[in-house]
């Protein structure tokens, strides 16, 4: 019986030290990112403005020709050239060059930041794993454990995107910043000594339900960052398109982000991709509740807010398919939905009494 196992004090201590070490490395990664942005600000690219204002004068149609390259050189035949046109009404604005702004030094610091993030991620993941070993159970018994796992998964997902060669380095700075915040809150206010689970949590559904919930949260978070940046970038592009003059700081920062269309697409993909998993998470929770409390749905605060979050994201997906709600309005809905997710985590655990409150602050 797992419950009989003693918690291993030494390992628990090691886990804490690993988490602190990862915080130190995340801080270095944060500084490296800042340096990257500072160096990047010295380049004056101005591609967005050129694209937006240039398109008006130029006689050429605003279409992009994309050459789709073949997969390897095995076929002798050249792959045909496929011409793509954006849907009617969208702007064709190129993505920004990224935080480094095309500068060599900036790029160097950016790479350093990513390497440090990888190191910090490894330390933090090791911290989570040693914690799990020390208690011989899934490391998701209280808010401290949720928080550390949550940021590990968020960073892991980001690194996964990088590994898959997706253009996501722009998430680096906001992500590392919030991870530091999350870990700070976890270690100072939410810290709970490693220990066994209360019987109500001792179920294999913990592995299923909580792991998917944490994963969904991490991915929704990346989507929310993209959505927020989309809103800024979109107003920036709108301003330029209407002949406005954005402030120099805003210009410098937003210029370097991907285009509003790319950010919007990224956040949609990410949110849509995890939505079925979030649905599954709620259903798994309901099945667990059916076993633990004798009813699968009882409008408990945690259940209500999971439902609200779910409806929020469903509304977002609907909005994307509804004319007149695309774009900014849909983005606001996505942000509200993520806000509900956050409230469900912090708000319900701390302020609202719920059957789930034994999760331990």
């Amino acid at each position, binding site marked *: 019986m797992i*419950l009989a196992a003693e918690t291993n004090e030494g390992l628990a201590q090691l886990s804490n030290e690993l988490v602190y070490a990862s915080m130190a490395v995340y801080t270095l990664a944060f500084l490296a990112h800042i340096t990257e942005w500072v160096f990047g600000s010295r380049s004056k690219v101005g591609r967005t403005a050129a694209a937006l204002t240039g398109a008006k004068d130029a006689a050429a149609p605003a279409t992009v020709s994309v050459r789709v390259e073949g997969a390897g050189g095995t076929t002798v035949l050249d*792959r045909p050239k496929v*011409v793509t046109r954006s849907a009617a009404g969208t702007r064709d604005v190129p993505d920004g060059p990224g935080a480094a702004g095309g500068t060599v030094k900036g790029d160097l610091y950016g790479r350093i930041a990513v390497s440090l993030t990888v190191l910090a991620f490894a330390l933090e993941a090791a911290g989570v794993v040693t914690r799990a070993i020390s208690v011989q159970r899934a490391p998701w018994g209280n808010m401290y454990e949720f928080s550390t796992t949550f940021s590990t998964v968020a960073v892991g997902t980001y690194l996964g995107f990088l590994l898959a060669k997706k253009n996501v380095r722009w998430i680096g700075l906001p992500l590392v910043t919030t991870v530091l915040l999350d870990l700070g809150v976890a270690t100072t206010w939410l810290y709970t*000594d490693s220990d066994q689970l209360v019987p109500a949590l001792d179920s294999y559904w913990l592995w299923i339900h909580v792991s998917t919930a944490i994963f969904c949260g991490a991915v929704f978070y990346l989507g929310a960052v993209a959505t927020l940046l989309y809103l800024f970038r979109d107003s920036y592009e709108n301003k330029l398109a209407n002949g406005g003059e954005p402030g120099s700081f805003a210009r410098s920062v937003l210029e370097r982000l991907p285009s509003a269309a790319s950010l919007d697409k990224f956040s949609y993909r990410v949110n849509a991709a995890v939505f079925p998993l979030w649905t599954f998470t709620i*259903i798994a929770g309901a099945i667990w509740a059916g076993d633990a409390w*004798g009813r699968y749905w009882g409008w408990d605060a945690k259940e209500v807010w999971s*439902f609200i979050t779910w409806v929020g994201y469903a509304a977002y997906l609907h909005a994307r398919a509804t004319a007149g709600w695309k774009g900014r309005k849909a983005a606001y809905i996505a942000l509200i939905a993520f806000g509900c997710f956050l409230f469900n985590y912090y708000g319900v655990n701390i302020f609202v009494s719920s059957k789930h409150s034994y999760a331990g602050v």
Partner: protein
Amino acid sequence: MSKTDTTETNRAAGADEAAAADLSTAPREETAGGPALGVVGWIRWFWRQLTSMRVALILLFLLSLGAVPGSLIPQTSADEMKVADFKAAHESLTPLYEKLQLFDVYSSVWFSAIYILLFVSLIGCIVPRTWQFVGQLRGLPPGAPRKLTRLPAYTTWRTGADPEQVREAALGVLKGRRFRARSAGDAVAAEKGYLREAGNLLFHIALIVMLVAFAWGQLFKSEGGKLVVEGDGFSNTLTQYDDFKSGSQFGVDELEPFSFSLDSFTGTYEKSGPQRGTPRTFEAAVTYTRGGGKDEKAVIRVNEPLKIGDSKVYLIAHGYAPVVTVRDGRGKSVFHGAVPLLPIDNNITSTGAIKVMDGYRDKNGEKQQLGFKAFFVPTFAGAGKGDMFSQFPALDFPVMALTGYHGNLRVDSGLPQNVYQLDTSKMTQFEVDGGTGVAQRMRPGETMTLPDGAGSITFEKDIKEWASFQVSQQPGNGLALGGAVAAIAGLTGSLFIQRRRVWVRAVRGEDGVTVVEMAGLGRSESAKLPEELADLAVALTATAPPAPEPAEAEASEGVEK
């Protein structure tokens, strides 16, 4: 968004429209103003509004907004005690809240109105969409638009092969990739990804199934609570329950015939560290029989209910039941049994009442009733160490304090009486040390002698535990689960599959060389679409190898608007 190329946009949209027709079954957004004429017109207008996506969106919003107060204000369905506390603490707010049904949000008129409207909208949306989709499945992919260059992905090349040959090959390639394809005039039209629409419809239908299952469960469910002391039993009939709730359509004869007895209850707790006292295991070992069958053993844990037929027996709570013996003045035992006490904190400090209803006579031979207020701690801190609260939930140093009364228990007063409380309005406290002072603390095995030869009460060494169980029967669970699984499957299909069309046109050019044009169109922009088109083109070049371009000028013509 940018106004510069609206004319451009309109022309392009016009060309795409026919080709894109029916690529989805989503209802058209109607922005045009009010209804046309008369009552029928109004009804039709209202119906069209209700089943539009915009209204669905607004209703979804309202639903989540409406769910909020229920999570912040105590709900009768969840915890009646909390509601009572809240009402006592907020006297001025209470009437308003009651009027707004804020203590029963999820069964309130307004919340029901939102979800019923939403589901009417949903059904009103699904039925026509399903018909439309069936029509699309039976129909054929629409013919190629006149100008393929306008579509989101486009490619062209010249080849020495015959146009008929090329079309034939295209048909083969597309069908080979599970497109539905047909020849139409000088082009081949193909479509793929119907599962997207099917998944979307399945998802929305599954939502209705889940709602029906939920409603069904509410109507036919039953839920009863029973406290059982170790060694005692329970049989599943209405009269045996301590409390019982059921849906409006539940019939009592639907109770599953079974009985069980609680052999033992085991609780273990963290012995040290900051979480000292936190429960680690709760296990109730029971012996049960079903419909007069043979005995079977089972262990019920917090996450592992016992399933007997359609019923599930859940372990809900536990506590202690000290065994006491009450004797009258002549030493005759008038009460002997385990008295379940209710925990009031996490360390199972417990309170309750011992009631001796009949059989007791005082020293004058008069019939009287006895009552004791009991205060029990499984682990006592030691005399003089603050209030008498338990330090640990296990039976490490059990102590019970009893205050005795005699008189009339008022059990026959007609008012329902709480078995854990003593009504002392018609009773007198036994004198303690010449007054009616503090209760007497006892250790197991000790006996308290009542004054003036009124008898005695013994706190027996054997302290039993009790467990309380919830027995629920909830039909529709399987249906709800089926709906949920279908919803996820449908959702996955609908979000990850792209529905798209491809056209291949092959015509002989003026110089006698065949010109092949290919174009693709999807519901939404996707990077995969041009890639797929390129793949198809590569496959097609096996039959229609590119011929050398005549001149650069002509090649760029294809791209021009």
